[in-house]
């Protein structure tokens, strides 16, 4: 397999507080790689550091030979990384169409890309003129994913996409991630729901205190639930 994204020795801090302490991670092409860990372990910070939203104090994030850590934050999505933040972070005052337009603009994509994305989320086609803040939680999550997919990314970062959603919507998100995997998109997924992780992920990296403790194949995790209890304290 070839690496889609390689993180080496990543250190990050919020002011004086060091959050990541030399994190290493390899995301293979077409892989769904899940980050698991307790609250405050550094999972969301890892995603933000990849996006350049939290500056790395040292280390590298290499995508197709380019070190993303050296780029300004607004150039990272142009390199092919799309981000679905925790809590969706839609532009709530804008319409669904305008939110999608923001995604399309990032890499200069057009109507064909938009149509392709709307085929994945047909419900959004009926809501294009609606203010995104008035959508239901599930629809908002769809829009957040659709907006990110408008970049036609090589790497997709999903931060707790199933948070607060009903089971039918969680199933839709699993299907979408599987479809994207089939199209060659590599995904890093931060997820608290172990059932979701077991059904979507190829590999899991456990993060503890800003360091990667262990990376296991999903089959190993299925066979040894104690692993989850050891690192996350649930399961």
């Amino acid at each position, binding site marked *: 397999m070839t690496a889609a994204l390689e993180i080496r020795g990543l250190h990050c801090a919020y002011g004086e507080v060091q959050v990541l302490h030399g994190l290493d991670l390899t995301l293979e092409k077409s892989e769904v790689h899940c980050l698991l860990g307790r609250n405050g372990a550094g999972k969301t910070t890892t995603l933000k550091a990849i996006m350049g939203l939290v500056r790395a104090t040292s280390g590298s994030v290499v995508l197709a030979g380019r070190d993303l850590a050296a780029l300004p934050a607004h150039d990272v*999505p142009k390199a092919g990384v799309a981000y679905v933040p925790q809590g969706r972070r839609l*532009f*709530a005052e*804008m319409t669904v169409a305008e939110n999608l337009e923001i995604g399309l603009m990032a890499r200069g994509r057009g109507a064909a890309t938009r149509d392709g994305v709307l085929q994945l989320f047909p419900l959004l086609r009926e809501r294009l003129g609606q203010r995104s803040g008035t959508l239901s939680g599930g629809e908002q999550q769809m829009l957040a994913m659709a907006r990110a997919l408008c970049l036609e990314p090589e790497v997709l970062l999903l931060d707790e996409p199933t948070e607060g959603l009903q089971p039918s919507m969680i199933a839709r998100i699993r299907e979408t991630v599987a479809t994207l995997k089939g199209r060659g998109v590599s995904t890093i997924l931060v997820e608290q729901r172990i059932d979701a992780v077991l059904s979507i992920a190829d590999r899991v990296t456990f993060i503890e205190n800003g360091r990667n403790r262990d990376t296991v194949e999903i089959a190993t995790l299925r066979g040894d639930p104690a692993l989850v209890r050891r690192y996350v304290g649930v399961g």
Partner: protein
Amino acid sequence: MAFGPHLLLAALEGLVTSAVLALMALGLSLVFGVMRVVNVAHGEFYMLGAVIAWWVASLVTGHPALGFLAALVISPLIVGAIALCAERLVLRRLDYDPEATIVATIGLLYLLQQAALTLYGPEARPVPAPFSYRVLLPWFGYSGYKLSVIASSAVLLLATWFVLTRTRIGLVMRATQYDRETAQAFGIAVDRVYAGVFALGAMLAAIAAVLIVPISQAHYLMGLDPLLLSFIVVIIGGLGSLRGTLVAALLIGLSDGIVSMFFSPTLAKIIATLVVAMVLVFRPQGLFGTAAR
């Protein structure tokens, strides 16, 4: 003069004030809305617009319209460039920290004011109106130029609304306004948006000044009163709300024109201040504003 025509005259004067105020307050509101920066130096960009307009108009010989049109183009460009420098040299270095930028723009206010005093002097100087046509109404004649100020302002406000709501530039500005971090995650160069918005805000103030300077006069202290009124307008309308800014500018401008004519200018200011106090107590986000995220 009978009451009806007298009221019409007062309303027209109020509309002129509203037109200029709306342009200036819109600049202030845009800067706060997108950057979360309270620009205390905004009145000085207005003053610079007027002073530079006088300088440009005095260099151009021939018909007054030529000098005025040259000022209308050149003055906002120079003021925009000065604002751009201030944004790069001061605000960006403070990382747009809301408290620090208030202090910094107070400093900028004094710098610009004292620079104008040193280079331009303490005198109030007029810029000739581009034309002196009077519109003859059945009850009185009214300055055609003042009516053109109202029309020009309306066109500029419509253009700004169009840019904000119907163009990609507007989309980018609104995305930055709603969520700076997410905007960056979608390839928007937030620092460039900030620089552009700060320059645009200053240019709107400068255009307002060029329009008003044939009616009043250019003076190095002329920025203070409009700054106060602009703050009143954006607080009533809601910081960052274009619609609120327009409604509040109309309200304040008309009440200023009518109350000043029938009673006294001081009473007009007292009423405006009372309205602000009421808004702050009962609807702190303004009439059309939304609570900041």
